[in-house]
């Protein structure tokens, strides 16, 4: 007698990976409907998204590469780039820590006031950035609540780098937390409990189980957060004071140049921001592809 197959030892079945759309008649429209819809979408994208992008680079290079490089080598422009990088370099790590902690406690624990915390995290999305800037002026400005105390200790917040960082942190706060909360909620706490039951400490569990599970989501959040931190205009504009070479970030610098009719220079700096957007977009697409794969791997469980 041959021994029976033990089904619990069998490998998973190999399913063919092919797109379902072509063969699935229920979700396939007739050819002309499909082509029209595709054409409408493409035209819209070209007109509203692609055209402005091309225009930025075209305008920036209108007077030749020489002027372009010249505009970027201008000391005010370099200072603006430096300040933007500094603000992002402080705001993004801060929000990485805040966002991770917030997402962790929301996804892994039950406590009173959780709904309130989630709404608070969304606040920067719903409040106009200008209002956010004004709030900081109200608190830290010369006439503000903490104004006299700050003046006494010779600390400048408004119209200085700390104000710009504060405003950037405020505006970019939700990006990382918002990205992580649904991901961590879906993953649940089984993995962490398994790690703990195997004798891992809380710290080991975090580094070896929780973090690897969310690394792509986290990177995605950081990327979006960084893009916004570098591009933020409204809130920063209110608290910065537009002091050239000191409190001017790239977006503010673009505005100043534009208002002074230095179009080529304005577009040159703007093209840097646009390039940043393109880089962000491509990394984001790549991550989404990775990220989606991880998520679907998760769902296959």
């Amino acid at each position: 007698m041959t021994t029976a197959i033990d089904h619990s030892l069998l490998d998973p079945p190999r399913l063919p990976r092919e797109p379902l759309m072509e063969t699935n008649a229920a979700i396939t429209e007739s050819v002309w409907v499909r082509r029209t819809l595709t054409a409408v979408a493409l035209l819209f994208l070209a007109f509203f998204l692609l055209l402005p992008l091309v225009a930025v680079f075209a305008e920036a290079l209108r007077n030749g590469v020489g002027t372009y490089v010249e505009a970027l080598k201008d000391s005010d422009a370099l200072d603006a780039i430096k300040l933007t990088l500094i603000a992002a370099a402080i705001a993004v790590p801060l929000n990485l820590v805040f966002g991770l902690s917030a997402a962790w406690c929301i996804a892994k624990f039950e406590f009173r006031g959780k709904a309130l915390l989630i709404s608070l995290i969304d606040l920067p999305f719903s409040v106009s950035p200008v209002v956010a800037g004004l709030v900081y002026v109200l608190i830290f400005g010369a006439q503000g609540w903490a104004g006299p105390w700050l003046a006494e200790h010779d600390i400048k917040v408004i119209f200085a780098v700390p104000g710009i960082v504060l405003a950037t942190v405020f505006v970019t706060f939700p990006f990382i937390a918002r990205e992580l909360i649904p991901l961590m909620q879906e993953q649940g706490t089984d993995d962490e409990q398994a790690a703990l039951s195997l004798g891992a400490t809380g710290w080991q569990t975090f580094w070896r189980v929780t973090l690897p599970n969310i690394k792509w989501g986290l990177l995605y959040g950081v990327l979006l957060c960084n893009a916004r931190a570098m591009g933020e205009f409204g809130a920063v504009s209110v608290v910065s004071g537009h002091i050239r070479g000191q409190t001017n970030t790239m977006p503010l610098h673009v505005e100043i140049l534009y208002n002074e009719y230095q179009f080529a220079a304005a577009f040159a700096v703007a093209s840097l921001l646009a390039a940043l957007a393109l880089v962000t977009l491509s990394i984001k697409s790549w991550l989404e592809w990775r990220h989606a794969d991880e998520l679907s791997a998760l769902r296959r469980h």
Partner: protein
Amino acid sequence: MQIQIRDIHKAFGSFPALKGVNLDIQSGELIALLGPSGSGKTTLLRTIAGLEYQDYGSIAFGGEDIASRPVRERGVGFVFQHYALFKHMTVADNIAFGLSVRKGEARPSKEAITKRVGELLELVQLAGLEKRYPAQLSGGQRQRVALARALAIDPKVLLLDEPFGALDAKVRKDLRRWLRELHDKTGYTTIFVTHDQEEALELADRVVVMNRGQIEQVGTTDDVYEQPATPFVFDFLGSVNILPGEVEGRRLRFDGGAGWDSDSIHPPGLVDVYVRPHDLQLVEAGTPGLDATVTNVQRTGALIRISAQLVQLPDTVELELSHLDPAARSRRPGDAIRVSPIRYGLFPRAPHRRPTTLPDVVPNAPAEYRERGRN
């Protein structure tokens, strides 16, 4: 490792999940916690593991009270219903996890860990798959990896939460048999949770039947099936006919039917007679029994199920007879039959006749109490 559980109480908000549970488990036993959804079986398992804390009561492993210890100090091997394998780690890294997180002296050398992982893979019959990731494994293979990972830390007790819940019927059956063999080979004290009575009866040494946060009966598989202590256990461990009757001295009489001498000792009064469908037999007219009219005959494999309406009572009865039984084969709807119980249980007449084994989850119980991800 001996386990003593004393008077465990646990509530989720206002919902009492465990209401005073006492249980003694001997070293090396294979115990099933059996009950419907919301009976507290998973909560009890998680409380033993230290994944939930009891509100009141004590738990001792080998005489040592561990009720206040956190899960990482209890040394339990917990296998989750959905395995909770670390999906960014290979099979080998998953199994090695419990050893590699140990610190200082307690951590075995790299070679020792590799050797132990190899032995465990051999034990769960997955040698050669150490480089795979969990996503590349079938459900049965994942369950084996989860088990190997839990065994790697040489646990004092092995706890399995619905170990076969998420698997296909065939995989489940093979895995069940293998788990029994593994237990006989390794001898770990093992507790598993299930809502499937067949699984519990087939796999366990002893079955703990739970209902509404309390233990209804603890006994060997024969005990709980053949001598159910309560109507709930009778009903939960298989289908049952419930007929009204009355005990007078040593005599049992069905309402509207003839009586006969009963060998069970039961105080006189109104009773419910619990009879399993396969414990009813067809008898000749004239012998003690109940008259009935066949309403439906259905053949399932080797069983013939007959539904019949009692003549003197408003109840219907179900019979399960062997397909080899000539008396059963020829029955058609409308035939008059006479049935008599071979074996039965007597319980005081209940105000509501039929106990329910439907999930009795309280609808407004807090979310964490609802059954986790049942497939």
